[in-house]
């Protein structure tokens, strides 16, 4: 079925913005339609999509009504005014709880807005609620959420990817046309690939991290998720840009991502040099994934791009290096959850010391994966081990960045499959962390090097009929190249797919709520 059959919730963000701006439809109507869709498909937590941890219907409708009132008064509004959005629950919001998917923050209401949240409000985007995620963004399936997994709208027995499974699933289930994700090792791109949506990890420092609850500070990057490339670009341009509250934020103009998406949609990639990363493929890669990836490369070639194979020999070391750097930072970032000032407090009955209460709280509040990474990181940073683990991993990081640099001397973008496999069944890999970690094999190098990357839908795997993503990597601050490639591909596939790949997803059962 096609998106247009869904009525208002089937429209793209760009279409909705235009309709709201022209007065054809009100922001309140658009918001209500999405809230109704959430009501219909998101619950119950045990069997629905479960993309949302919190829905703020009143707040969303009030924000929408405000947009309508100001439009009626002739005020000039932002390019996405009145368009609903799903916000990953790792971004602080002063008007909604923020849990980062963890029991330890259950019920916490931050006293401040993240820069992203503030920019969305200032752009008159309507935030519907907060989306489910792996605890503190650690996971590739959303099964590590303390509040239960999110389901993949393509197959409700399967995972939607993670950590941003909630954001991606909300798009695929037509609960929101836009979502914000965060990507530490693939948490935007891998769920996008597994749900047939678009996910972009901007250049590190491109979008402010102020108010993004840290997983690994040197790797975390927030970015746009959408069903179309243009929608992602529009959202990207709203949230990106320098922020004085984030010392690692880049003080440079945001690349013209919207312009790049529009030019790309013209379907001409003449002159673009595309490098296929030699190291990503073969053993461990699902046949259907490789087939769709090869089709996509052929498609880029047909659009005029010049395709060559490029070797990035250090990319194979990226995964182990990542699993030293990430836990090290995690062990320090998660130390603050100690029951003293906010969040969960366990065992404070007046007989126990602060240290005992802290230990009990952390024992009860963190899930298994969070504990695993805290222990790994604590070990890796310990005196006597630092050089062999953290120090060595930082060297690999430099080598990965050099591989990118050398490659981008020859080509404009690199491509690979986004993930080695399509979406797997819920529960299949929960007891096998290493199999779980392999999901991010292709996406991790860009987090280590800080360059821009994205995943775009490139078809369905023959063996299971599930979506496959094309991973496109661009140099630091060349985010616009991603949009050019993504939009060209989207336009080229539109004919054979009858629009977006997502149109081929099965219709979800609506509950009679």
């Amino acid at each position, binding site marked *: 079925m096609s998106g247009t059959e869904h009525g208002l919730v089937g429209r793209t963000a760009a279409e909705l913005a235009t309709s709201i701006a022209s007065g054809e439809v009100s922001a309140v109507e658009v918001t209500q339609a999405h809230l109704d869709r959430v009501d219909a498909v998101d619950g119950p937590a045990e069997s629905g999509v479960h993309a949302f941890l919190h829905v703020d219907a009143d707040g969303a409708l009030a924000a929408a009504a405000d947009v309508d009132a100001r439009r009626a008064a002739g005020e000039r509004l932002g390019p996405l005014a009145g368009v609903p959005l799903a916000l990953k629950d790792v971004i602080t919001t002063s008007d909604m709880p923020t849990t980062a998917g963890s029991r330890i923050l259950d019920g*916490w209401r931050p006293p401040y807005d993240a820069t992203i949240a503030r920019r969305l409000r200032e752009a008159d985007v309507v935030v519907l609620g907060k989306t489910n995620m792996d605890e503190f963004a650690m996971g590739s399936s959303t099964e590590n959420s303390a509040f239960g997994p999110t389901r993949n709208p393509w197959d409700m027995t399967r995972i939607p990817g993670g950590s941003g499974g909630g954001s991606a699933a909300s798009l695929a289930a037509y609960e929101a046309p836009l979502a914000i994700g965060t990507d530490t090792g693939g948490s935007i791109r891998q769920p996008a690939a597994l749900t047939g949506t678009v996910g972009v990890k901007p250049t590190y420092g491109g979008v402010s991290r102020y108010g*993004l609850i840290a997983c690994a*500070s040197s790797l975390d990057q927030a970015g746009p998720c959408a069903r179309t490339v243009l929608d992602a670009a529009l959202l990207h341009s709203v949230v990106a840009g320098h922020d004085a509250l984030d010392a*690692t934020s880049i003080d440079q103009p945001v690349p013209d991502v919207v312009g790049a998406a529009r030019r790309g949609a013209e379907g001409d990639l003449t002159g673009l040099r595309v490098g296929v990363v030699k190291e990503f493929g073969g053993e461990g890669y699902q046949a259907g994934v490789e087939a769709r990836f090869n089709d996509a490369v052929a498609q880029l070639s047909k659009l005029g791009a010049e395709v060559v194979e490029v070797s990035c020999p250090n990319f194979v070391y990226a995964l182990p290096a990542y699993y030293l750097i990430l836990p090290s930072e995690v062990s*320090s970032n998660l130390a603050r959850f*100690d029951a*003293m000032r906010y969040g969960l407090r366990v065992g404070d009955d007046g007989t126990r010391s602060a240290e005992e209460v802290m230990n009990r709280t952390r024992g009860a509040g963190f899930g298994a994966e969070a504990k695993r990474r805290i222990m790994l990181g604590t070990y890796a940073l310990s*005196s006597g081990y630092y050089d062999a683990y953290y120090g060595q991993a930082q060297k690999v990081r430099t080598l990965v960045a050099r591989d990118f640099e050398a490659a981008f001397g020859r080509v404009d973008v690199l491509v690979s499959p986004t993930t080695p496999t399509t979406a797997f069944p819920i529960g299949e890999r929960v007891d096998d962390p290493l199999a779980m970690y392999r999901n991010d094999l292709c996406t991790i190098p860009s987090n280590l090097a800080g360059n821009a990357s994205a995943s775009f839908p490139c078809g369905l795997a023959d063996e299971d009929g599930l979506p496959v993503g094309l991973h496109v990597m661009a140099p630091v601050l060349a985010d616009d190249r991603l949009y050019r490639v993504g939009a060209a591909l989207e336009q080229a596939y539109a004919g054979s797919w009858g629009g977006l790949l997502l149109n081929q997803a099965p219709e979800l059962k609506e509950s009679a709520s």
Partner: protein
Amino acid sequence: MTTAERVNPSSLPGFDDAIARFEPVMGMEVHVELGTATKMFCGCSTEFGGDPNSQVCPVCLGLPGSLPVVNGTAVESAICIGLALNCDIAEWCRFARKNYFYPDMPKNFQVSQYDEPIAFDGWLDVTVPGADATAEPDVYRIGIERAHMEEDTGKSLHVGGATGRIHGASHSLLDYNRSGIPLIEIVTKPIEVPPAVAPAVARAYVTELRELIKALAVSEARMELGQMRCDANVSLRPVGTTAFGTRTETKNVNSMRSVERAVTYEVRRQAAVLTEGGSIVQETRHWHEDTGETTAGRAKEEAEDYRYFPEPDLVPIAPSREWVEQLRTTLPEPPAARRARLQAEWGFTDLEMRDVVNAGAMPLIEATITAGADAAGAKKWWLGEISRTANERGTALEDAGITPADVARVEELVAAGSLNDKLARQVVEGVLAGEGAPDVVVEARGLAVVSDDSALGAAVDDAIAANPDVAEKIRGGNMGAVGAIIGSVMKATQGQADAKRARELIIERLGG
């Protein structure tokens, strides 16, 4: 403190006995709170004395999602301190996270600097008095290992225990106003000086460092407010050997005098342990101002592994050489040079100057002189009346309630003959009591000297009439008797008479 650790101070060897066998090696670690308007990594006020938790924000509370941004003024202050300590300034350095759990540290890590301090490898010359009063003072060069930036922690108040310590407390209160206040930690190289002067050198180092910090105007460095905090490391080695012994670190020795006492005590205590064949435990020790002792704190072998790693939320600091050199040109005259210059200008002896410096009166005297007083007059007030009052109230000299301008005005009134010494003291007393500026006190208390001739003449006439015998003696040429009539005049005027003018009037009437 357990009884086993208690040492009877009277059973310890004397300091001289201790150093006859052992040589101390010292190391000083001094934390200075910078006087920036805002905190190290956020915009919160650093003002002292606000209501608990009134000067906090998501950043200094370490709330999830918050991020630090470096205070540029704090970096500038750190560079100035480094330059004034003759250090090299790093061309590139980073902050690091020092990880450990403590409730008054909101992130459970402290943002500090580890192996890349902003300033390193410098020195500071300090002066201690010579062996006797006539000898030239001795100068020692103290090596500076490093000066680095870090953030302060919050403050815990343990309630319900006997001593304010955590042991036995029923609960604790946390105040995060201090959390994130910028600190500079200055660490010396090992200090090896003649054993006899070691405690005095330690004191002189902290004193000189404090003068330097104040001269740079980067902090008021008031130890009683915790703006400057000192940890003293001491180890002993047998006389004639070179390898360092095991050291102890005595924390929070927070006055100049305590630094000297704490080092002296540790030398004696460690000498006693070593003499009895024991060994020194590497540990932190607590200084007790009241008893003059140190007691064992945390043993270092159980000390935590801080798991330092570069702070990923901050970008490296790379001060340009141009900036560093520009800052170097703004450095004030070094305190030692300034002291020498002022001593010469004021004509004070070494001993007088030492008293002035020890009292912390030098800048006040300088300001008083600038306001018009002479050096001797300014010194008299600041080291006399005002010092006494400040001591009684336990405040710093500058907080005693009188300004250099006030003191200069009192001196001006004395010079003009409007006040005599006795009245001047009353005026200063009034100003110190908060009664207002000198002229206000003079007016309110009616303290002006009676020097106008009609009023004074009447008092003189009365005194002569009341003491005919004395008057006769003066008429007879016994000028020594004039004093008795003056005394009578002073009594009648409650001391407000201008004694010099009274003498003239008496002689006019009786001596002519």
